[in-house]
């Protein structure tokens, strides 16, 4: 291993998640269960934002964990563990969405429990003109946002989810999605434009958020 490889491996070993994964690789009793408990919330959340259905999100998250277990012996720490984990998640989520596109489906809607279900056409959200933005409740807004996310292509959606909900920078997202940071920048920019278009009727209901720095000045 060269000097760069050594330093990146040493850097990775400082990551407690890497050390946990190394315990999984060594077949240490209880380590894999600990890994599942550590990452289940984040993985299910990513998958939920990608597919819009909690049951499917949990199935996909389980599949990610099983793949982690199966490939544990070939794991070599090079970067943050979450980057490796989310790369597997990204591939699975994109495959799942592409497979789903091949099958006919109806839109998803959120129930009070937060689970999204397929609903018949007559129960779908009415056109937004019927809902003044100031009266929309948070759960309805969540539904609208989920639909806006689903309107993005799967790569834009994954970039948004990793950036917004995992707080990942362009370099890490690029690593997960096997793209260049420049491509990620472009993906996120186009995703924001699409979201702005899809959510423009709801933008000004959000006046409670902080002002931009230039306005504060």
């Amino acid at each position: 291993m060269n000097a760069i490889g050594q330093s990146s491996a040493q850097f990775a070993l400082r990551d407690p998640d890497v050390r946990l994964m190394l315990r999984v690789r060594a077949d240490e009793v209880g380590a894999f269960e600990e890994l599942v408990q550590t990452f289940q919330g984040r993985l299910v959340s990513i998958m939920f934002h990608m597919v819009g259905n909690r049951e499917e999100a949990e199935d996909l998250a389980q599949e990610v964990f099983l793949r982690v277990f199966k490939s544990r012996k070939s794991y070599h720490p090079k970067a943050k563990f979450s980057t490796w984990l989310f790369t597997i998640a990204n591939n699975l989520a994109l495959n799942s969405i592409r497979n789903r596109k091949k099958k006919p489906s109806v839109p998803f809607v959120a129930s009070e429990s937060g689970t999204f279900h397929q609903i018949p056409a007559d129960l779908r959200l009415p056109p937004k003109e019927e809902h003044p933005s100031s009266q929309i409740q948070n759960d309805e807004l969540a539904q609208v946002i989920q639909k806006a996310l689903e309107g993005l292509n799967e790569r834009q959606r994954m970039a948004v989810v990793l950036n917004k909900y995992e707080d990942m920078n362009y370099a890490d997202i690029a690593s997960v999605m096997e793209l260049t940071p420049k491509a990620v920048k472009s993906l996120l920019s186009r995703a924001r434009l699409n979201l702005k278009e899809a959510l423009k009727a709801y933008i000004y209901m959000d006046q409670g958020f902080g002002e931009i720095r230039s306005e504060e000045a």
Partner: protein
Amino acid sequence: MTPEKNEIDGDAFQDREELYSAYLDGELSDKEARDFEARLASDPEERRRFQQLKETWNLLDYLPAPEVTTNFTARTMDRLEKITRHSTARIPLSDSLPGFAFVAGLVVLFVLGFLGMNAYLRDPNKEMDLVKDLRVVENLPMYQEIKSISFLKRLDEPELFGDEVSGSQGQ
């Protein structure tokens, strides 16, 4: 294409939107960020466009993260155990396949060798060869004394023994 996009050419529009996006994501250098903030401060229209993008992004905070079902870990471990058990049931066969193949190969070679040798020993031609060569076999110790073919050929020369015969006759 949005009306805004018609106002400027495509590349400039894309560059501007990427700049907004990179600023929101904290991906600009300090100098780039300061320059951008100066632009926002001096241009109300730019500030409005940027504010729209920022608020759109903030709307995503309203999307709740789902709670993982309480038995998720247990279900995952069960699923893993089923797969592992299934694999374990199959793994010995697949893992020991080379061993089985080696042993099977040895058995096949042994059987073929046995059958081949048996067939060779029972070959009637082989028995005929033995009969044909019987006199050679019987005299093999004597033939081995001869050492070389040339010596044997010289023994066959009549003059070699002819002189001795005539000489003895002369005595």
